[in-house]
């Protein structure tokens, strides 16, 4: 199994990545490969630096003052720090913890990213791209008659799927999801899970989740981040990174087993 995975192309390669905020290390020395068309889930206690880490993947951390990222992150072999951040963010989409549609129409929410990034095509092509994105998240049938309505009128679950559609429309190479179901009810959250397993046929998904059942259900590989304390300093460390079955059934580390079992039971 491990061998089969290793033959996968590696869209994202991390080499000794360390993230620090104003001198305080948030997460240290992460080295890992993220494989194509798989769902990679990051689990670990709150404050262990998961969000800080995946926000490096699309250089969102550039927008925060005092953040320093060391090490190398390679996107299909290119160091992302040498690429244009705007381009990185188009190629690496992101879905946030709370649904945050723009206070515009449903249609415009999806079309805007395309237009901004210089979508080349007619109005019809644009309509088609919007429809396709909404179909891929299973939202099309629910909203096709009210595309001009304000997106804020949608329910929380629909809003989150709209946010995913917004990202899909740009055909990203990787999709980052920071606890995409944290603010959703169980039914909406299940819909998203279902969607994720479908999406991975076409996309590479990296997600953070506190819901271990979700990780077990949808993820192919799981990365467990734990908090290490050295004197006053506390920072996150990648403790174990393995296929989902291994993490949940026979993890190498006792800490992983403890985390996975206490929470799931």
């Amino acid at each position, binding site marked *: 199994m491990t061998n089969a995975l290793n033959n996968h192309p590696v869209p994202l390669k991390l080499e000794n990545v360390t993230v620090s905020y104003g001198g305080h290390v948030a997460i240290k020395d992460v080295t890992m490969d993220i494989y194509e068309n798989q769902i990679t889930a990051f689990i670990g206690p709150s404050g262990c630096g998961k969000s800080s880490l995946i926000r490096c993947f*699309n250089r*969102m951390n550039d*927008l925060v003052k005092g953040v320093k990222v060391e090490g190398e992150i390679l996107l299909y072999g290119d160091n992302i720090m040498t690429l*244009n951040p*705007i*381009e*990185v*963010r*188009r*190629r690496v*989409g*992101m879905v*946030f913890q*709370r*649904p*945050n549609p*723009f*206070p*515009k129409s449903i249609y415009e929410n999806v079309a*805007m*990213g*395309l237009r*901004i*990034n*210089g*979508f*080349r*095509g007619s109005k019809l092509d644009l309509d088609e*791209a919007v429809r*396709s994105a909404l*179909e*891929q998240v*299973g939202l099309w*049938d*629910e909203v096709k008659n009210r595309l001009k309505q304000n997106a*804020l009128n*949608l*329910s*929380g*679950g629909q*809003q989150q799927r709209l*946010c995913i559609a*917004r*990202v899909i429309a*740009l*055909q990203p190479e990787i999709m980052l999801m920071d606890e995409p179901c944290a*603010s959703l*009810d169980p*039914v*909406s959250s*299940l*819909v998203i899970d*279902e*969607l994720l397993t*479908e*999406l991975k*046929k*076409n996309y590479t998904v990296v997600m953070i989740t506190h819901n271990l059942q979700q990780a077990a259900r949808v993820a192919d590989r799981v990365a467990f981040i734990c908090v290490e304390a050295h004197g006053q300093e506390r920072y996150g460390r990648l403790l174990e990174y393995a296929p989902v079955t291994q993490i949940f059934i026979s993890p190498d580390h006792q800490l992983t087993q403890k985390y996975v079992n206490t929470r799931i039971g």
Partner: protein
Amino acid sequence: METINRAERFRQRSQTVTNLVEILVHIVLLALASVPILITLTLVGILIYEAFSFFQNVAVDLTPDSQTVSRGFWAGIAKFFSDGTWTVGQNEPTDEGFGAGALVLIVSTLIVSAIAMAVAIPLGLLAAIYLSEYAPPWLRLVLKPALESISGVPTVVLGYFGFLTLSDLLKQVFPTIASQSGLCAGLVIGVFLIPTISSLAEDALHAVPMELQESGYALGMTKFEVVWRIVVQTAFPGIVAAIALAASRAFGETMIALLAGGRGGTVINFNPLEANTTITTFIVGSTDGDLNPGSFLRSAAFTMGMVLFIMTLILNSFGNWLIRRNREYLSSALVSKLEVVSSEAEAEAASSLEDLHIAQALPSPSERLSFAPAYGFRNIVGMVFHGVALLSTLVGIIFLGVIIYQNVVAGWSYLDWQFLTSTQSTDPKEAGIIVPLAGTFWITILTAILVIPIGIGGAIYFEEYMPDGWWKRLIDVQISNLAAVPSIIYGLLGLGLFVRIQQVLANDNQVGRNILSAALTLTLIVLPFQIIATRSALDNIPNSQRYAAYATGMTRWQVVWRVLLPAALPAITTGSLLALTTAIAETAALIAVGAVASIRFTPTGLDSQFITLPVQIYYWSAAGKPFEPLNSAAIITLIGILVIINFSAVFIRNFFRLKPR
């Protein structure tokens, strides 16, 4: 046993006393809080009364035996809205060619305001965007107060600059322009309104949730694209509100319109290169004439006051409504919708779970979308915008810098002890400003004595005593409306109320235009600001303080007196000082109440005639070349006083902020 009894007796007695105090305090506060409502009612009452008399007398017929016959109220209203000329104050309704068409003044007002808004909207909006989205923190710390200090400069100073300097510059561009013109007035008012728009718009931009901007960046937008397409568009209602509030100030601006725009023209005039009589310049100008009770000119001035009042009221109500609505809208956008779970909704959710059909395979790589590169044109647009926004922020600041520099150069050498202590004189070498200085001092102190207790008491009532409900919301709206009523209208109210009462009491129409009336009028102007400042100071005290105080068994007044007021004191002091600067800078209302151009004696009592520093600046503006350096010296003195008060306010605030509570 005995001790317990004593304790009970003690408690009971003190409770009766505290209850009595409580009731008494409640009544006093209620009385103070009703002042703004009384002001509103009186204002509306006087305006309607005078307007009624105006409309009854404005349309007349002459019978063959030269007896005047009024054609009545409705004919008056028809004349008011249909006449194409306005000669009120120049001749009487019985004269040949008399015109009373409000459109003449309204069109001029709209033209001057439109020019002002054409300056203020782009510059103010770009400045707001620059300050809120682009400026590094240290630069913002410098630029924001510098820009906002424009709105603290007395408008008589700005108007004088327009009259003296800007009109000459305009003459080089438009050779046919009059020395006082609508264009010149509009431009200066526009600069004056930049900070109004920029600070309100900045609030609106700030209110846009960070999450929206993040999702914009995450889609690969450049900074400019996030700012322009997400932040500005989301904040759009708030920006429109800022524009509405600024426009209402443009309508009501008096001193700039008077000094830079002049007066003239009796027909509807669309040409901004000529002098334009706006509503405000007509009102303040007519106070030169016969404004005795019952005179036609007086009722005309009040009627135009009513027109102005209605225009500003509509714009303000609209702006405030929009701000309120937008705030609710944005906060609701951040809260997930509460989903009502019905069996139907559950079925729908379940079915969507089942037929979640995922789309056909994505297009193969060759058909993949192609994207415009993220550099090149998109970056250049962003950089150009950044530069334009920075320049827009600087325009107002440079304007202010030029005004201060020019006056310091012209007036510095005149600013000596002799100037500060001499009385007015026709000889520029001997003239000084002791009389207006003393007038400003008297009136400001008197205003402070009146406005501080009323304002603080009223604010305490609104904030701590008044039960919530539609009544409270109405008063909320009304106070912000009062704060936006043009000061010239308060000048009319002072004339129609305070001056009039004294005239009736003394049975003499020559009295009443004195220090007392001036201070009472300024009290009307400052009161809304005092109330708003005090309320926000009380509002900023965390509720936990109130709970803690009540939990120790304090009555409501004890909570206010012992806990809330001490905690709010620094903010209230700062707010009061800033509110008083409004009084010190006020010009138009005092001209309307009856400031006297040349008095040689410092005030001796409440019934003395008066002049203040800004009014003196206004009179000297028209006094000719020899008085120009004197006027500059007076301007430096006035601005110096305002700067000192502002700095003390800021100092007090910072001093108490550093102290641990």
